[in-house]
């Protein structure tokens, strides 16, 4: 963070201006922060409302009811199964994509790989092409002929490509920040290219890998289009897709319970982010944002 503000520290402060400029500055930013926080706070509130209060036209409930989360765990095994599906699909996607991106980024930056320029051009081109949309029908047909419709691997395999190009570009940006001399030195010392990657480059690329994990986590965890196209059996669907398809609102799927499930669905991402934010922010600034 310090780097980001470094130039401000050096610049002469526009101090002793009328105080309201500061008020206006923080006021505007806080306004945008509220625009972001209030909707999420509303769902959180809904998830602890009593069933009756959830259907009246008031925002603040008369009675709180904190049992909706427990209800989901105890009485809705199907939802838990969907949650487990989401975890399996997301973890697999994140691990596979990150490994691919690290290996490819390494080959594109620090190794004399023939055809690097071509690979790079193709990667950039896929970013500007609506790949996901155009390939959708083809992916459905492939998974169908491989009998992977309504299976978890059938989701994981195409999920890897969702952010594949972006992930490789991010790792490329991160590796470019590491001086080639270090890699050359390791080579001269006789280290194999694999050992150089593992022992020299990986420890330096931690921040970038955190960015990879978070970006791929978010897109795999909440992917909808492929999931709804490649699965129609509720028991193999991922959690967010089930939430989308069951906007009922009564009985078992009463609003506060769905809201509780909603909070369960967004918490893993927010927790991961809260835990890893230091590395994430550094990674973004280090090169992940330099396409």
């Amino acid at each position: 963070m310090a780097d980001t503000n470094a130039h401000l520290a050096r610049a002469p402060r526009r101090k002793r201006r009328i105080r309201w400029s500061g008020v206006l500055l923080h006021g505007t930013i806080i306004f945008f922060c509220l625009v972001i926080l209030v909707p999420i706070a509303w769902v959180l509130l809904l998830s602890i409302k009593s069933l009756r209060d959830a259907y009246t036209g008031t925002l603040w409930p008369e009675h709180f009811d904190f049992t909706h989360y427990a209800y989901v765990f105890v009485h809705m095994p199907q939802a838990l199964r969907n949650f487990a599906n989401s975890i399996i699909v997301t973890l697999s996607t994140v691990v596979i994509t990150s490994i691919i991106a690290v290996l490819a980024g390494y080959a594109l930056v620090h190794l004399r790989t023939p055809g690097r320029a071509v690979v790079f051009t193709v990667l950039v081109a896929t970013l500007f092409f609506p790949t996901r949309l155009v390939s959708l029908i083809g992916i459905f047909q492939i998974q169908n002929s491989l009998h992977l419709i309504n299976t978890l691997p059938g989701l994981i395999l195409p999920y890897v490509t969702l952010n594949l190009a972006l992930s490789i570009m991010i790792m490329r940006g991160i590796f470019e920040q590491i001086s080639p001399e270090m890699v050359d030195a390791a080579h001269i010392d006789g280290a194999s290219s694999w050992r150089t990657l593992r022992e020299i480059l990986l420890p330096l690329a931690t921040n970038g890998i955190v960015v990879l994990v978070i970006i791929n986590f978010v897109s795999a965890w909440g992917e909808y289009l492929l999931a709804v196209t490649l699965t129609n059996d509720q028991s193999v669907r991922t959690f967010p897709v089930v939430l989308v398809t069951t906007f009922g609102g009564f009985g078992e799927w009463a609003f506060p319970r769905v809201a509780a499930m909603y909070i369960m669905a967004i918490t893993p991402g927010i927790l991961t982010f809260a835990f890893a934010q230091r590395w994430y922010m550094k990674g973004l600034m280090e090169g992940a944002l330099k396409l």
Partner: protein
Amino acid sequence: MQVRLRDWGNWVYLIPGLFFFLVYMAYPILKVSWISFTDYQYLSRVPAKFVGLKNFIDVLADPIFRTGMLRAATFTAIFLPGVIFIPLLVAVLVDRVKNPKVSTVYRLILLIPAVIPGAMIFVLWRWLYDYEIGPINVILVNYLHLFTARNAPQWVGVSNLAVPAVAFVEIWWGLGYHTMFFLAGLAAIPGEIFEAARVDGANEWQMFWHVTVPRLRPILLILVVLRFGTAMAVIDDFLIMGGLNRAMPTYTWTVYMWHLAFQIGNWPQGYAAAIGWLGAAAMLVVVAALFWVFRNRD
């Protein structure tokens, strides 16, 4: 540089990526290209026939496709300025916050939507926009009494509000992430430039237009082009928030393609493939035009 045989061995590191690229990107796209020239219908038992350009000609004359393209363009026209200028404004403001702790807190809050997955964002806003139980209408009707339960706004329905409402959701989702892009760009501008401009008597507004914006040009270009592409091809929002009603302003060409390929009749995937390709081609033309407009004139 002479390419040695041994260097080809480094391709070992690219093979995993290549596998996924070929099997789940290149091959499906080629396959879609092929079936777009046939009358392939997924549920039909009749073998597909090669029909040449018939699908493409029919799609171009198809009023639903044309309306769909127009709707996607409307969405893009609202979304694109919002997702560029609002984060730019926020970034310039956050960049001025001198206290590093406060600045970090702002950044973290702004980034929260970036870690909420897409489908969850749209589910959330489907609730917020809901006609009866949605808190927006609850506030408008029960608290502010601006509307009654009968004439409250139908945010995502068959009305002119639908497209701006969905565009707002996308802007909300992208706000923090794009702000980070601009903050990274701002951090790279040397402070001396602002100092010099100030000494020359430039005011904040002039510095923004003559120092900040030109310096951020590369980032602006890449974001405008990338977001244009994503905006024209948006589908998840429209499926989740708008559904499959053709009268809805959210029924764009992408929804039409999906609807035909996986829901309607015998699933005419050949025809749907042609829709996908024509939409993509139209986008690519505009992307090329944008690159030409933004080309480096120096």
